[in-house]
């Protein structure tokens, strides 16, 4: 676990070196655009979604205050130039996901070259997939022009293989949460997943995660597990969380429960495999389009995934987190609650909050009350 401390600094150095060696850095704000495209062009893909509260004040001078904190944080980092990963990025790839991000990208483009892909609003194989597939062609051209590297089929297949392995390692790490009692806390898992995203060398990340899994299987962390103990097993669903925006995960675990599963973009939504037998561009378009984010309507994928995860992770309760002003997850919360009520015979705890610390006690009371219900 100590290696986690050093990872953050090392990540920055590695990226600097990569840039010095001529590799491009591509910034992303979403799971819909395949990172494989960047990897296939020897570029470093970086997940730029802001997870800190500090830059939000600056963002609020340009963006409306009533806006998702993730968007404000991301934008704030960009305009204050306080995020080294944003600074390192040569270009930004955005997608027409939610209204807030869509309109934010318009302003972001004044600070860095931003390319926005038109993500469909549903996942219909007849109508949406062809649109997304053609956007993949445009995306490929954008990356090729930036990096100067022709993305051949071979390169793409290799990238898919590599990222499949990385996602496999992520899944294996997250699947440790299926063990009872959970050997790692949700905070620990989240920290690892978060920091892996910034690694310039994907192999390093894969090794790290595989090692953690191996250590767990060999009985390490057993004492931590005892401390985690008989805590209620909670699945956290909803919006993405990261280091800095993980206040809810912390509060849940301070209250004696353990977050055994993350049904969100930061977690299990990344546990997919690209079909290596298919044409790579087709396979990428198809798999990535199926990402079950609430911007999709309908979003049946999320409901299916949630049902599966509740079962496989032996979950006692589900906490549904919505960032303030996120309309899509907020509206979907009603039916997620219905699903959980049907499946587990208890409701979800739906929390709506932002990145600030000011409502910590209010959240704690609600979370504790919910845990008492289970």
């Amino acid at each position, binding site marked *: 676990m100590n290696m986690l401390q050093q990872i953050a600094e090392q990540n920055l150095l590695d990226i600097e070196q990569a840039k010095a060696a001529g590799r491009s850095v591509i910034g992303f704000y979403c799971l819909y655009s395949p990172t494989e495209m960047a990897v296939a062009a020897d570029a470093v893909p970086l997940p730029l979604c802001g997870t800190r509260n500090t830059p939000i004040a600056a963002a*609020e*001078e340009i963006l409306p205050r009533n806006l998702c904190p993730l968007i404000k944080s991301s934008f704030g980092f960009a305009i204050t130039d306080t995020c080294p990963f944003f600074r390192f990025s040569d270009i930004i790839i955005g997608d027409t996901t939610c209204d807030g991000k869509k309109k934010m990208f318009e302003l972001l483009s004044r600070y860095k070259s931003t390319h926005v892909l038109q993500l469909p609003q549903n996942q219909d194989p007849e109508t949406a997939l062809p649109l997304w597939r053609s956007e993949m062609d445009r995306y490929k051209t954008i990356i090729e022009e930036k990096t100067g590297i022709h993305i051949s089929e071979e390169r793409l297949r290799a990238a898919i293989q590599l990222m499949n392995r990385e996602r496999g390692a992520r899944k294996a790490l997250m699947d440790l949460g299926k063990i009872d009692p959970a050997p790692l806390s949700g905070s620990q898992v989240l920290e690892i997943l978060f920091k892996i995203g910034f690694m310039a060398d994907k192999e390093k990340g894969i090794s790290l995660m595989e090692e953690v899994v191996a250590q767990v299987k060999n009985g390490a962390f057993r004492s931590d597990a005892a401390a985690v103990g008989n805590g209620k097993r909670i699945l956290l669903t909803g919006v993405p969380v990261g280091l800095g925006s993980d206040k809810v995960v912390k509060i849940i675990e301070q209250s004696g429960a353990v977050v055994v599963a993350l049904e969100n973009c930061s977690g299990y939504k990344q546990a997919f495999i690209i079909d290596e037998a298919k044409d790579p561009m087709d396979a990428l378009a198809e798999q990535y389009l199926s990402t079950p984010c609430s911007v999709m309507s309908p979003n049946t994928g999320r409901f299916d995934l949630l049902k599966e995860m509740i079962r496989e992770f032996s979950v006692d309760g589900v906490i549904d987190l919505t960032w303030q002003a996120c309309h899509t997850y907020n509206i979907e919360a009603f039916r997620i609650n219905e699903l959980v009520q049907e499946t587990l015979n208890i409701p979800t705890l739906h929390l709506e909050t932002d990145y600030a*610390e*000011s*409502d910590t006690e209010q959240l704690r009371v609600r979370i504790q009350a919910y845990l008492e219900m289970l």
Partner: protein
Amino acid sequence: MRKRFAGIDIGSRTIELVVVDDSGKIVISLQTDTGFDPMAAAKNLIHSVEYDRIMATGYGRNLFEISFDTLTVTEIKAHAIGARAFFPDVQAVLDIGGQDSKAISLFESGKVKKFEMNDRCAAGTGKFLEIMAKTLGFDIETFGREALLAENGLAISSMCTVFAESEVTSLIAKGKSRREIARGLHTSVIQRAAGMINRVSSVGDIVFTGGVAKNPCMRRFLAETLGRNVLVPEDPQLVGALGAALLAREIP
């Protein structure tokens, strides 16, 4: 007898009445609490003075218009004119009253260029400071001075008055310095105010008006945070009424 023009600023906490002569000089200025019956309080004030024409501003101006023969003007324009009477070249005005706050920028001519108001919530207003002073056991008159006595301020994260109050209570319970808390609270209010004034005006001197402008800590922090000169009229609460009176004078 020279002509006299009155301006009355009917706020939700206090009512100010200013009478100017036809050279624009203040001859009378009065203040009273609004209380439960604003019109009765206003009536009392105006019956004690003589004037040829009156202009009403503030929250209660439309109500006043129904009962009395008067013209009305918004507190935005009234503050702009009033501030200019004290400081003829100024192009930025920040008014923090009991229950609202506003930032106004002016053209060189003195005409209103842009304004922003916060009148939906107590945060960043005099009310916020009053409630916090009480919670900390300070007098509102000396609250600012007490805050200035602290070397450092404790950051208060709640924007909302209600939640900030509980935050302060729990800090007191933890034994934190009341002066440091006071300083932190003043910083909160200034941050809101600074944001507001920055959005309408980014350079130049600022005239600071309203009851809160009497608070020395607020004046100092405002100047320091913005790096701009902060000018405060002798009686910062009269600015709206003065502006209304001067406008009454301008009518042919």
